[in-house]
């Protein structure tokens, strides 16, 4: 198929065919990372700017490595803080960067919609590496890739996502992605972390972890932001861990072969017991590994590369 998307702003505006195409492309990129010389000339001469307005280690490094393995020149810019008060506007920042003629800008920003804002104003491709509480498409794609790798399919599976749903861009992207690929999505969290109307995005809402993960094929735990504690969302991390943390015992409610996922970084002993993080069902590091392959695929596809040349 012809991949027509110039930007990757979210999963919402991708079709099931496009998602599958991205995942299939990622399969072929995954092998490159296992070679002793982990580099192909596919994007030689292309410039990719990682423009991060929020702290990120995993995602930024993953995009950077993905670009480098494709021989692109990658530049990281960490813009400190939000653009709320001082300094130049996001538009001016972006225009200045574009004047240096990058081919792709990978952006993370604390404002929902910031990547759409950028894409409307710039000529280069924009990849959303997380915008506020809106979407985090590459995460959902690497999650789907990992699930598919373990289960051989996505269609018909039951995936439970537990945690702070309200503030999670990972959840929104995953709900869109998994629905489009035919999975059933369940979500759970304390009432303070379940946004109104979330079910309309395509998920079943539970108020307790046990019901949500019962017989699930896949359990995805979200990072709890410790600063939410005391902000009237949860009384304490301790209580959160007791009711919404995943223990070995609770995990037994899911299918015996269920996989356990987490977008990272994990708070051990909060959303997941250490024994689960280190247990046989966890695929967290595979998610990280697959992230590089999926991001290689995204960079390649938005560059409009016609032929897959790995040599």
């Amino acid at each position, binding site marked *: 198929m012809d991949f027509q998307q110039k930007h990757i702003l979210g999963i919402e505006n991708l079709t099931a065919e496009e998602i599958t195409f991205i995942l299939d492309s990622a399969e072929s990129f995954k092998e490159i990372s296992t070679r002793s010389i982990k580099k192909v000339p596919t994007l030689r001469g292309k410039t990719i700017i990682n423009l991060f307005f929020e702290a990120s280690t995993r995602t930024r490094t993953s995009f950077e490595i993905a670009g480098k393995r494709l021989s692109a020149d990658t530049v990281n810019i960490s813009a400190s803080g939000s653009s709320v008060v001082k300094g130049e*506007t996001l538009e001016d920042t972006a225009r200045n960067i574009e004047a240096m003629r990058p081919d792709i800008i990978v952006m993370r920003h604390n404002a929902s*919609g910031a990547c759409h804002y950028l894409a409307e104003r710039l000529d280069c491709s924009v990849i959303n590496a997380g915008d506020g509480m*809106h979407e985090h498409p590459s995460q959902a794609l690497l999650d789907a890739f990992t699930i598919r790798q373990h289960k051989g399919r996505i269609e018909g599976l039951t995936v439970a996502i537990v945690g702070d749903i309200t503030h999670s861009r990972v959840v*929104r992207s995953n709900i869109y992605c998994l629905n489009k690929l035919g999975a059933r999505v369940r979500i759970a969290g304390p009432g303070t972390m379940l*946004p109104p109307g979330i079910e309309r995005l395509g998920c079943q809402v539970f108020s307790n972890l046990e019901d949500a993960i019962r017989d699930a094929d896949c359990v995805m735990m979200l990072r709890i932001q410790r600063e939410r504690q005391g902000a009237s969302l949860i009384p304490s991390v301790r209580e959160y861990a007791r009711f919404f943390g995943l223990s070995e015992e609770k995990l037994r409610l899911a299918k015996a072969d269920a996989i356990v996922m987490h977008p990272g970084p994990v708070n051990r002993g909060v959303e997941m017991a250490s024994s689960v993080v280190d247990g046989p069902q966890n695929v967290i590091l595979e998610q990280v590994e697959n992230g590089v392959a999926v991001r290689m695929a995204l960079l390649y596809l938005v560059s409009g590369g016609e032929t897959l040349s790995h040599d």
Partner: protein
Amino acid sequence: MKTLIKSGRLVDPANHIDEKLDILIVAGKVAELAPNIDAGTAEVINAAGLIVTPGLIDMHVHLRDPGLEYKEDIISGTRAAAAGGVTSLACMPNSSPVNDNLAVTRYIISKAREQGSANVYPIGCITKGQKGEVLAEMGELKEGGCVGFSDDGLPVRDGEMMRRALEYANTFGAPVISHAEELSLVAGGCMNEGPVSTELGLKGIPWVAEDAMTARDIMLAELTGAHLHVAHVSTRGSVELVRQAKGRGVRVTCEATPHHFMLTDDAVRGYNTNAKMNPPLRSQADVDAIRAGLADGTIDAIATDHAPHHSDEKNVEFAIALNGIVGLETLLPLTLQLVAEKVLSLTQAIALVTCRPARILGIERGSLAPGAVADITLINPNKEWTLDAAQLQSKSRNTPFDGRTMKGHAVRTLLAGTTVFER
């Protein structure tokens, strides 16, 4: 100096008139209403095929003058008013400095008289500096020309302070205009809370933030017997609270904006900052409730909350964009849209933008009875046109209606018998 407006359909709800009548204007006042008045020496304005109404009144406008003239000033704001058929407007006090003292009130009134194209009635602050701590000198402000009091943009958070404000303003016969918002429930929200905010990942403002404060203020009006006017009601609950209060005789009035009866929070999709305002665009059920409230008389006025902002203040990430849209030049067609959709009769619609807001503010406008000041709007109700924000008379361009096809507009606006706008 005589002017004769000939052959128009006069719609003057204050005087229960809806018929073809000529209007003779002498020395800026209505001298005679009758069929086929002989022109004599008068200048004749042919109004055949047009609707002729008292000049429109917009009781909720931000003129941004003094201090924020890069967004709007009294000259451009009143020019926008005239182009929209609006001859009288009430301007909110959140200028810079705020209108909490006689000097600012006098500045606004004199600049409007000398250089404006519309009557400007200032609204004074409820509290000094809009800080909610000390009452503004309402007596002197009223004497100086303020027609009501509001800390618009901010609610009066302290219940005792709001109670005293109502009692004190009532001493001078002025309404207190409530910007009803319980800030602890807004909690950093930037759009209506609901499925759309969830989908867009934007922090929502629940309806209860408005309803809770509306309920408090209505009860305070009930307690004090003072006149409360609730600005820009946007929720089903607020409309119902006002309806019930009126039913038990509370002195409460309220207004709604065109955007709150025309648009839902769907308009925010795409992170459209011109769909960002406070109160936010709500759900379809809220829009329906506002329309019902307009139809049954619960809502007393249509007011625009004209809130000009520079493009730099809108051309940013949604969460940090400033609230508000311009409205003076779209008030009339959007109000007429409710007539086209059979929500309101033409008389009802015109009353909502003429005599009813005039009554709330206690101003002698909104009527064309003989002897009245000849503030008059001539309307072509059938003219289809497309809004081009770049063509607005306002200094600012922030409207969600850019590119929208409208029906009906003011073709001529007269202020005390003098034409201040002609299309």
